[in-house]
C-alpha cells in the first residue's frame, strides 16, 4: 500500500481532484460503451417482436 490512510488515498497528495476526475471520466466512458450496444440490441429485438406480432395478425 502506497498510502498511510484512506484519507491520504483520497487526497492523492493534493492531486486528488485531477486523479479522481480523470478516472471518473474514463470509467463513465467505458460504461457508456457497454450500455450503448446492449441498449441498441434490446431496442432492435423489441422492434422485431412488434413486427413479428403485426405479421402474425394479418
Amino acid at each position, binding site marked *: 500500500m*502506497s498510502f498511510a490512510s484512506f484519507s491520504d488515498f483520497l487526497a492523492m497528495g493534493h492531486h*486528488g481532484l*485531477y486523479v479522481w476526475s480523470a478516472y471518473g471520466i474514463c470509467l463513465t466512458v467505458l460504461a457508456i*460503451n*457497454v450500455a450503448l450496444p446492449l441498449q*441498441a*440490441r434490446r431496442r432492435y*429485438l*423489441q422492434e422485431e417482436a412488434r413486427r413479428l406480432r403485426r405479421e402474425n395478425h394479418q
Partner: protein
Amino acid sequence: MKMSWTWFHKLGSPKWFYAISGRMLPWLTIAAVLLLLVGIAWGLAFAPQDYQQGNSFRIIYIHVPAAMLAQSCYVLLAVAGVVGLVWKMKLADVALQCAAPIGAWMTAVALVTGAIWGKPTWGSWWVWDARLTSMLILLFLYFGIIALGQAISNRDSAAKACAVLAIVGVVNIPIIKYSVEWWNTLHQGATFTLTEKPAMPAEMWLPLLLTVLGFYCFFGAVLLLRMRLEVLKREARASWVRDEVLNSLGRETVR
C-alpha cells in the same frame, strides 16, 4: 508450402462470425473485468508514487491504454478497409463501422485524461504540441469516418468511402508515434517499447501492462457486441438470423 485459406473465407461468413463471437464474448468480458480491476486497484493504491510528479502520474494507468487503443483501433479500421476493398468481405465493413465510434471514444478519453494530467504536470491543460495535435487530428479522422458512414445511404458506396478515408488517414499513426522524437515536445516518450526495458520499476509498469491488456480485451468485447447486432440487422432476411432473433426474443423480451 500450401497454406489453407479456409479460415479466411469462413471469417467472411456472418453466420460463422456470429457463432464464434458468441463463444468468445464471455471470456473477453471476464478477462477485461479482471485485468481492469486488478490493474486499476494496483495502480491507484499500491504502485509507488512518482518522485517528480507525485500521485498525478497515476493517470498513466488509464491515459496510456486509452491512447494505445485509440491508435490500434485506427490501424484496425485501415486493415478492415483494405480487406473490404480487396476481398469485398462484408464483415470488414461491419468491423470498420462498429470500431470507429469506440476508437473515437478512446481518443477522447486519451485527450481528456491527458489534459487533466497536463495541468498539474506542465501547468497547462493544453499545448499545441506535436503529440497532442496529432491526437486531435485522429479524433477528427474518426468523426469524419463516422459521419461519412452515416451520410451515404448506399451501403456499398459508404463502405468504399469509409475504407478509403481510413486507409489515407493511417499516415497519422506513425506521426503520432514518432511525434515525441521528431519534434521538441513537452510530452514524455513511450513507456513501453519492444526493444528496451521500461524506465520505471516493475511495480509501476506491471499494473500499466494489466490495464493495457484490460483495455484491449474491453475493446474486443464491446466491438463484438456492436458487430453482432449489426450482422443481425444486415442479414435480417437469412433464416439463421430469424431463428436467432426468435430465440433471443424468447429469452429477453417476453414480458
